[in-house]
């Protein structure tokens, strides 16, 4: 009696052990499926990375309008932006891609490489009005895979009150030397210098790129002397106490929260924080990120692309094209980019934005100078380079390697 119950118990234990272990890895098996197709014939599916917008939002209403105009119903699903790339790959594997997909721009080249997206030759989208530096992020191998819905980029926010107390004239900040001098003054005045995000994810690379490009470095040579000088700049800021050690774990949101305390003189952050800055009651200004020896550094472009995924039934492209054209028409772009706090991708709408809100002027300039991460035909090489880059940033800033060693290790791993 005792025996058999013990036997049963240990079988149960072994089964539990196996079951628990399996669930741990099942998530990487990729067998999940999301049904994208609606039931009706006139239903078109659209996926976007804006889960913050519900049915009553302006964005959802715009989608409904465009659907009605094209004579179909739009079934919309909002995903978390970091999930969307993998969700789309899985859906394409199962043969149920959405009809219209709005996706973060560095993901476009990966999806294009996977054969998930149609080119503008197939879907007949008109991209002629879009700024070429923004469109480049959606191009690879001479083909264009979508059109940007809006763009954002990075710049330096500064706190006027802190700078005044430290006796820094913002007009004097023109290059890295003068910026570092300003930080030293701020520190002397008992305030904190600058905060940014150097976390070990894509966000960390995104924030480092303006300095990397501002030094004149290229993504194809991570170990160049210019690249080392950019990383050394960050490293020295940490060493001198101009930047907090917490940048290593800061997302752009947490770094913004640090700036919002009012103790920091500078914060490297994006267009999307503008609304929050006004709400926080900060007396702030915006400055394009300076290059190593003056001028404005290129910042990486953020923002999403509207794309048309490949369908078995190619007849669906015509309607999908109508929907995308409606979403990216001049009037609608203006509304959408205002809601998203983005800069529009066409100069026509940009002018309209600046006319309505002069505060956007430095951002429009920054977007015009910005550069796509997957541009220069890097395409799917970029994710590998970027991963090594954020690893190098983390190694150098945490002190486990010197900037030079970290970057040479990154370069040999990225090749």
């Amino acid at each position, binding site marked *: *009696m005792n*025996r*058999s119950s*013990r*036997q*049963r118990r*240990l*079988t149960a*234990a*072994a089964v*539990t*052990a*196996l079951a*628990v*272990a*399996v669930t*741990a*890895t*099942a998530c*990487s*098996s*990729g*067998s999940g499926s999301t049904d994208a197709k609606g039931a009706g014939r006139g239903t078109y599916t659209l996926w976007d990375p804006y889960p913050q917008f519900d049915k009553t939002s302006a964005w959802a209403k715009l989608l409904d309008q465009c659907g009605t105009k094209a004579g179909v119903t739009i079934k919309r699903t909002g995903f978390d932006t970091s999930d969307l*790339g*993998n969700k789309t*790959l899985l859906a394409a*594997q199962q043969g149920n891609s959405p009809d219209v997909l709005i996706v973060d721009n*560095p*993901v476009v080249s*990966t*999806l294009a*490489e*996977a*054969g*998930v997206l149609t080119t503008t030759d197939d879907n007949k989208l008109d991209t002629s009005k879009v700024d070429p530096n923004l469109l480049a992020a959606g191009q690879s191998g001479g083909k264009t895979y979508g059109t940007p819905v809006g763009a954002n980029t990075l710049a330096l926010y500064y706190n006027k009150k802190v700078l005044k107390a430290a006796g820094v004239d913002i007009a004097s900040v023109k290059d890295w030397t003068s910026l570092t001098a300003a930080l030293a003054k701020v520190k002397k005045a008992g305030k904190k210098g600058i905060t940014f995000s150097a*976390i*070990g*994810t*894509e966000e960390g690379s995104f924030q480092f790129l303006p300095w990397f490009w501002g030094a004149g470095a290229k993504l194809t040579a991570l170990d160049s002397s210019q690249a080392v000088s950019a990383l050394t700049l960050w490293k020295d800021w940490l060493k001198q106490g101009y930047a*907090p*050690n*917490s940048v*290593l*774990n800061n997302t752009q949101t947490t770094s913004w929260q*640090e700036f919002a305390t009012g103790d920091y003189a500078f914060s490297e952050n994006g267009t999307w924080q503008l609304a929050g800055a006004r709400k926080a009651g900060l007396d702030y200004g915006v400055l394009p990120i300076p290059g190593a020896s003056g001028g404005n550094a290129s910042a990486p472009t953020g923002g999403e692309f509207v794309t048309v995924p490949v369908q078995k039934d190619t007849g669906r492209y015509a309607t999908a094209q109508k929907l995308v054209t409606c979403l990216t028409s001049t009037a609608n772009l203006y509304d959408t980019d205002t809601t998203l706090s983005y800069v529009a991708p066409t100069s026509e709408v940009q002018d309209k934005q600046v006319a309505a809100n002069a505060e956007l002027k430095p951002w429009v300039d920054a977007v015009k100078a910005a550069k796509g991460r997957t541009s220069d035909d890097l395409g*799917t090489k*970029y*994710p*590998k380079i*970027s*991963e090594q880059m954020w*690893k190098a940033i*983390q*190694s150098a*800033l*945490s*002190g*486990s*390697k010197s900037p030079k060693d970290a970057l040479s290790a990154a370069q040999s*791993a990225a090749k």
Partner: protein
Amino acid sequence: MNHTTELPNHRSARVRNGAAAAAPPPARSAKRRPTSTQWAAWGFLAPVTVYLALFYAYPLYRNLDLSLRDYTVRSFVQGDAPFTGLANYRKVFADPTFAPALLHTAVFTAVCLVSQYAIGLALAVFFNQNFRLSATLRALFLVPWLLPLIVSASTWSWMLNSESGVVNATLHAVGVGPVNWLTSPSMSLASVIIANIWIGVPFNLVVLYSGLQSVPAGLYEAAALDGANAWQRFWRITFPLLRPVSAITLLLGLIYTLKVFDIIWIMTKGGPADSSTTFATWSYQLGFGNLLPAFGPGAAVGNLLVVAALVFGLVYVRMQRRQALS
């Protein structure tokens, strides 16, 4: 239940006396009426079989398949990834992250397991004395277990923040310089271990406490009469009698700790510079942490984890069997 009747022959002589009397008649006698009862039996068996096959066997098979093929994003979508045998595993073993990840997984699991068990046992013995308010205090100790992991991990990450964390503020108040808990390569692993121990203690406490209830009080009285002090009573009575409960607690704890992912990912993302990377975070990092997913190597690392958990599960079964026979 069939196990008792299918034991190897050389054992059956010993077993027959004790177990055979209690065991049900052999299943073969049911052969006479195969139809209705057997169909019913299959009917009852079907749901769980289908469930197991669909949700356990198939994902496991897919994960194995994924780890044996060379997946790129294109072949993942088209489904024509070439079979490459153990190439993904070789790649994983040769990766410079492999050795640190193995070491961190071992250290993380061992330190967490031992500390959780020791603290859990100490608390269980303490609460077993049933003093006033002991039930309330015990309930309070369960809080870490009840909180969603994302909440507790975020809270830890906030408390350990180098700049604005409450831990460094406290250290500052007592005159100790700031510690970079999450951002220094020498501290990050220790930080996630501390957080994980805090989360794991309640489970050990609850299971060991219930185990203590089954130790007869008479034994303690007898030992006390024989002049055993509290320390001896613990080592000679409590500890040996808790052995079966301890074994299952440690096994479940081990499997749970091996696969801990959320806490580490939320607190440090496995960094800085891989200093808190374990197999679980590495597997995720490979498969999902990059814009360009490496499904094959990610699945390979995941399978190594499954194998590790399985090995320890078998060791446990082995131990139990030997104990049962002796």
